[in-house]
């Protein structure tokens, strides 16, 4: 039968209102106002003999037989929350511990049978508690602490087996410490399924830390009447010490071969994390004060473990913080956070104690260490992005949630992922490999219980023999400290990414404003700087025109020089402006036939003195570009070539294009005066001239313009030359500029 491990019937049983008690004592539910007994269950024979009639009797009269102390004073001690020890009662030699608590305007009193030799107060068992406290102070290892606790409780209770049982996240339990004798088998290291202690039982363990079952074969004493006449409900026995337990549990105990059991709840921050569970082969009672002492020991153990745990976490956290700050420093220093993270790859791994990691930004993946491969990472990210978008995702069993993940179990059975963008698929992931574990169950899972073929009722399992389960497709679980560290890293990355975005925005704003200023500046230059030169030329020429006859030859020459200089200065302003416009003007890219363009430029160029130039123009492709700008670039280069072949008897200018990987390279070569390669770096700068002005005319801005135009087309410019042997000027246009 494929049946879930849960005894779901157990889950539903209202075990806090069993309607009966264990028979080693009595329970009285007393009206707080009148002091009359409303409900009662008397299991102890001696008490039954003493009290002929209990229901409706005044509680003071019932108790007065067992003590000489004023009853009202005793009852005043009963607390609202949890039960407290009120007195030791003695009914003609039959002794009872009186404990009580309040509930629903009633006093719930319990008389628990006390043995002859049992401690009558906590003082008698205090030495055990003190000894444990001393041990605790010297125990450094957790195992030592646990062992000290079970030894002490073994000594105190004299029960056959004492074990510490720890719950995992799914409420399965594991026995992590034990003291036993030869009367009961050892359970150390065994695991027990969550169904052994169902949810409402765990709830009772949380509210009432101590629970004793003195005899698994007991006959319960029934509470009468079943319903409290004041509330109309059965009395809630959550806080009671004599509460009767579920018959299923008693059967479980008998199957286990233990007739008595006693448990102490281990709580941390009011949450149940384990039990100290004691078993005895025969029926046994653990005296009230001994139970209280055991509770102390359990509480001290819990606190010590919590303290040690907190310390270990703090040390772990501290170590990870050091790793984290190194990563942060690198990220802050890097152009991009991904680079910063990858620069410290060991740190990235150790932040989460992972064996592999990956940084995913859109379709790009950078992976380090032992990772499942780019395709697998893609599929993980794809899956993640379809889940509800959480900042952090963590699993130690990826194959359980992502079908197919078993194929890369060796690298990524465990995944911890942080999402670093709300809008895009950007993640940092850490991976852990599968670690095959063997879990030893107390009894084979799946056969934990069987239905009785006669009654159809479920029975708890009978076998507790060790059964090994091999757990696959799981990694070492991720520690909360590691999860926290990655969450903090996420915050840091998000901050850095945001800050970078802000910085970029600020920079672009500043660039825009600088550009505006520059534009305003050049606009004003274009208007205001040209005017004075125009005036100089204008007036000088008017002077020559009107007063020319009276001027000497020298005066004539002076005027000519003034005019020439002012014209040159004006030309310079014009060139500078066109250079600045070249950087700002929008590019209008169309298909440009370079061959046609070269021919058209050649036709427009003037060759001084009507020299004959041999043009060798090769096959030139059609490219994409701004025709006006490309024209200007060619014009500058061809103009230069003409200019610098001036003194050649046989000037040759050749223009060719060749295809290179990713680009087309154009070359304008001449056999002119050339240049010294030592100055090649200066060639394309603004106002850089390699010749004296009287040798060759020009403002020194032509090649700067060429470079700017080609750069606007995403190309490159360079030159080669040799003094006296000509020059070659190259420019490239990227291949996507080919039309």
């Amino acid at each position, binding site marked *: 039968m494929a049946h879930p491990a849960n005894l779901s019937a157990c889950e539903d049983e209202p075990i806090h209102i069993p309607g009966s008690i264990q028979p080693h004592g009595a329970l009285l539910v007393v009206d707080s106002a009148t002091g009359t007994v409303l409900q009662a269950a008397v299991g102890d024979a001696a008490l039954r003999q003493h009290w002929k009639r209990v229901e409706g009797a005044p509680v003071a009269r019932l108790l007065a037989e067992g003590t000489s102390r004023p009853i009202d004073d005793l009852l005043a001690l009963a607390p609202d929350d949890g039960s407290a020890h009120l007195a030791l009662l003695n009914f003609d030699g039959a002794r009872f511990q009186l404990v009580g608590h309040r509930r629903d305007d009633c006093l719930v009193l319990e008389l628990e049978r006390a043995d002859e030799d049992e401690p009558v107060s906590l003082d008698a068992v205090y030495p055990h508690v003190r000894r444990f406290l001393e041990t605790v102070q010297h125990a450094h290892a957790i195992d030592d602490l646990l062992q000290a606790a079970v030894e002490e409780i073994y000594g105190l209770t004299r029960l056959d087996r004492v074990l510490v049982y720890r719950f995992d996240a799914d409420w399965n339990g594991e026995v992590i410490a034990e003291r036993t004798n030869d009367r009961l088998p050892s359970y150390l290291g065994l695991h027990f399924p969550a169904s052994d202690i169902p949810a409402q039982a765990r709830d009772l363990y949380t509210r009432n830390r101590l629970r004793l079952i003195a005899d698994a074969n007991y006959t319960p004493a029934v509470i009468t009447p079943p319903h409290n006449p004041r509330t109309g409900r059965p009395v809630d026995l959550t806080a009671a010490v004599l509460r009767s337990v579920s018959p299923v549990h008693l059967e479980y105990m008998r199957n286990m071969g233990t007739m008595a059991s006693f448990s102490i709840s281990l709580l941390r921050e009011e949450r149940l994390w384990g039990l100290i569970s004691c078993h005895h082969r025969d029926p046994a009672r653990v005296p009230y004060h001994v139970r209280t002492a055991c509770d102390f020991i359990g509480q001290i153990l819990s606190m010590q473990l919590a303290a040690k745990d907190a310390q270990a976490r703090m040390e772990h956290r501290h170590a990870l913080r050091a790793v984290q700050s190194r990563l942060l420093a690198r990220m802050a220093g890097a152009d991009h956070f991904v680079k910063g993270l990858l620069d410290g790859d060991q740190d990235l791994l150790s932040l989460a104690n992972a064996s592999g990691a990956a940084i995913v930004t859109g379709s790009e993946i950078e992976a380090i260490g032992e990772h499942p491969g780019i395709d697998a990472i893609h599929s993980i990210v794809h899956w993640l992005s379809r889940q509800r978008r959480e900042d952090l995702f963590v699993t130690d069993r990826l194959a359980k949630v992502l079908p197919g993940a078993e194929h890369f179990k060796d690298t990524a059975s465990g995944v911890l992922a942080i999402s670093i963008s709300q809008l895009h698929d950007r993640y940092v992931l850490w991976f852990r490999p599968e670690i095959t574990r063997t879990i030893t169950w107390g009894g084979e899972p799946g056969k934990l219980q069987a239905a009785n073929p006669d009654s159809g009722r479920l029975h708890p399992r009978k076998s507790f023999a060790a059964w090994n389960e091999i757990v696959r497709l799981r990694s070492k679980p991720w520690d909360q400290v590691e999860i926290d560290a990655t969450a903090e890293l996420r915050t840091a990355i998000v901050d850095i990414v945001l800050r970078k975005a802000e910085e970029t925005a600020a920079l672009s704003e500043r660039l825009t404003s600088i550009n505006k200023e520059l534009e305003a500046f050049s606009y004003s230059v274009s208007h205001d700087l040209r005017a004075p030169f125009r005036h100089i030329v204008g007036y000088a020429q008017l002077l020559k025109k009107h007063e020319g006859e009276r001027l000497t030859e020298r005066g004539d020459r002076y005027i000519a020089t003034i005019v020439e200089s002012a014209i040159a200065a004006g030309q310079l302003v*014009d060139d500078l402006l*066109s250079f600045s416009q070249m950087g700002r003007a929008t590019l209008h890219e169309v298909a440009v036939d370079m061959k046609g363009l070269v021919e058209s430029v050649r036709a427009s160029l003037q060759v001084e003195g009507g020299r004959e130039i041999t043009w060798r123009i090769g096959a030139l492709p059609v490219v994409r570009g701004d025709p006006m700008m490309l024209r200007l670039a060619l014009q500058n280069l061809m103009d230069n070539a003409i200019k610098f072949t001036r003194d050649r008897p046989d000037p040759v200018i050749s223009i060719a294009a060749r295809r290179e990987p990713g680009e087309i390279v154009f070359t304008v070569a001449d056999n002119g005066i050339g240049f010294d390669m030592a100055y090649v770096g200066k060639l394309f700068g603004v106002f850089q001239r390699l010749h004296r002005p009287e040798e060759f005319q020009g403002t020194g801005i032509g090649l700067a313009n060429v470079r700017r135009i080609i750069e606007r087309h995403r190309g490159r410019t360079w030159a080669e030359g040799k003094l006296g042997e000509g020059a070659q000027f190259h420019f490239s246009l990227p291949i996507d500029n080919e039309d």
Partner: protein
Amino acid sequence: MAELKPILLVEDSPKDVELTLAALEQCQLANSVVVVRDGAEALDYLYARGDYANRAAGEPAVVLLDLKLPKVDGLEVLEIVKRDALLRHTPVVMLTSSREERDLVRSYSLGVNAFVVKPVEFEQFFEAIRDLGMFWAVLNEPPPRGYNGGGTT
């Protein structure tokens, strides 16, 4: 032949005024030249108001308009003129030091009749002014009154 209409020169720089006048003089045009020194004054003249309230009626033969002007700049004057149903047929020639593309584009979009970048060289300037003067002041007849169509020549 009716009395020649004057040429309106709008120019803030006294040196440019003098040089322009010298150029116009060399063209030996018969038209008189009215010189105003900013955009506001130009508009006063065109609308015969303010200091020009009592001027002889009629629009100028051509307006030679500098682009950069105090108070109301050349582009604003151009815009007002070209939006005015009565003035829009008066030819406007923009004279400017600027080689800025945006000025050129803006001027043409406002309906300028010609756009002249003042060359540094005086001879070129002289030729430009002379050509403009000859074309607009003497050769070009404005459309008859009441004609509100687009381009005319």
